[in-house]
């Protein structure tokens, strides 16, 4: 059968739904961001909103801060998740099976829950400081470092880690399960140590999955406002919160600006994702060609 027709057939549902619901919506927000929002009388089309965004020092500073923050928290999640996935990917072992089930738990719950629980746990009157005081490890709860709304955004990072480490584990283990240890056996036989094995064989083989998980998490960490809104530090405001605040002020004439900021943020994420995919293709493991 002609492959071309087959591919068109395979992709048409995706493109159909994407065009209907997604591209059209994005297009509309793009048009709005250009300043065309007739319902409030804005009809002048131009790049003025983009221009003002790039001239705003707050915005740019927030951009940089958010990028570093997202990069760091995503990298942490991926690193820890990767390590744990490797330690516990066996399927025969009951112990690792239980581990996998536990790891699935956080994936299933919305972020908002962990925010709620974290506030109960690590705010200064939370369970953990109380426990430390009770146990005599700390003399007063005031010595407990501020972990919520703190300048280092530890609260947000913890929330993201709680959700994302398991996500990384789950997506990697699903791949690792499929990939038996045949190549590991070969490498060991050729003299590779455990570490070399990990570095040269296992890691490249799951590299595409890892990059995927990284991009998904990064996009979330970079673009979502819910958690930073609740747990973030107001002085070091993250970009999504900055945009959200602008949005909820309820001034509809500001909507084009909000949209342009959102689109700038998205564009940045897209470029970064593209870059990561590109890098991934050149890194070891970029060519798997279907493991044989």
């Amino acid at each position: 059968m002609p492959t071309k027709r087959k591919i068109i057939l395979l992709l048409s549902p995706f493109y159909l739904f994407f065009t209907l619901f997604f591209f059209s919506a994005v297009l509309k927000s793009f048009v709005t961001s250009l300043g065309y929002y007739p319902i409030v009388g804005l009809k002048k089309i131009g790049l003025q909103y983009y221009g003002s965004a790039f001239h705003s020092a707050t915005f740019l500073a927030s951009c940089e801060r958010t990028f570093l923050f997202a990069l760091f928290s995503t990298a942490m999640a991926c690193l820890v998740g990767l390590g744990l996935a490797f330690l516990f990917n066996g399927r025969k072992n009951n112990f690792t099976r239980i581990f996998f089930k536990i790891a699935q738990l956080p994936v299933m719950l919305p972020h908002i829950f962990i925010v709620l629980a974290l506030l109960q746990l690590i705010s200064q009157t939370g369970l953990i400081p109380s426990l430390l005081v009770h146990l005599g490890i700390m003399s007063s709860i005031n010595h407990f470092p501020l972990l919520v709304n703190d300048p280092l955004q530890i609260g947000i990072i913890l929330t993201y880690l709680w959700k994302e480490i398991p996500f990384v584990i789950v997506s990697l283990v699903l791949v690792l399960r499929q990939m038996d240890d045949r190549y590991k056996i070969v490498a060991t036989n050729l003299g590779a140590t455990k570490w070399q094995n990990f570095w040269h064989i296992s890691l490249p083989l799951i590299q595409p999955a890892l990059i995927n998980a990284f991009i998904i998490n990064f996009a979330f960490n970079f673009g979502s406002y819910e958690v930073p809104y609740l747990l973030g530090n107001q002085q070091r405001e993250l970009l999504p919160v900055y945009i959200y605040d602008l949005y909820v002020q309820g001034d509809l004439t500001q909507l084009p600006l909000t949209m342009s900021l959102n689109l700038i943020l998205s564009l940045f994420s897209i470029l970064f994702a593209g870059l990561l995919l590109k890098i991934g293709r050149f890194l070891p493991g970029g060519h798997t060609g279907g493991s044989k």
Partner: protein
Amino acid sequence: MTYYLNNISQKKGGQQILKKVNLSINDNSIFAILGPSGSGKTSLLNILARIDHPTAGTFTGDNEQKPKGIMVFQDYRLFPHMTVFQNIVFGLKIKKIKKAEIRQRAERIMMTMEITELAKRYPDELSGGQQQRVALARALILNPSLLLMDEPFSSLDEGLRMEMLDFVKKLQQQFKLTVIFVTHYKTEAYLLSNQVAILINGQIMQIDTPRKLEQTPANLAVAKFLGQANFIQGSFQQHQFVSSIYTGDSDFRGTGPVKEATLYIPFVGSIQLATTAFSAFNGEIIGITWIGDSERVTIAVGSEIIYLNLPVDSVQINTKKQFYFKRLPVVY
């Protein structure tokens, strides 16, 4: 140094797939293990490579307590994410050998394997035989003191196979390697090694030189495995083999009930037209197939059909001939 396999047994899926294998293999030699499909060859090599643990028994060396062989896998197992070059140098890179040396060694071995132009390809862009050569190169480049090869030439054509065989032999002599290699293809075994063990059904049946093996297989199983032979049913009575095509003296090696004996007539080297002291049978030539270096001749002896490989043009179809055993025929 000598390697010892002591009473190695292996069980899998409730089945005994290796049964008390005992072998001692001199170092600096090539040792072939020949056996039919499913006889346990791969399983045995896996144990020698310490990829698998035997359920019983040990594999030891004179000096080393735990020798470990480098393996060429039957199913190649090239790393799918590495190019041919990367695959080949993997073992060297792991050992942190200098780049220049790696490059040089890789180039040499790729030249020998005729895969130099493939260096940048990925395994899924190679033909079967090319993959097998890369797998070979990946192990050979390490000059391992103990090299294990699992049917390493099965996908190669005759010409390449011979070159590879020569190369392995040279390498073995140059670096004083010990090579244990497994095959189902007896010519290969005979060409490479002077010591061949026959593994059938998880048991070592015979260890001998190729010639001895062919002429006097230890038992019927070996004889049948070596193939290219006629097996004539008969009985063994009063020190005589009795059957429809031949009755007379024989070299009896059977263990089974005397009532049922089998006469072993290999296609090659057992029967000739020139007269000897051992008259065999009189038969009619009913078919001749040309098979390259000789002719496969189909002979009807009474109601039995016998096949022999005879020199080209030594008999004509539809003629009758008297055949002779070269020596006393073997009966099991």
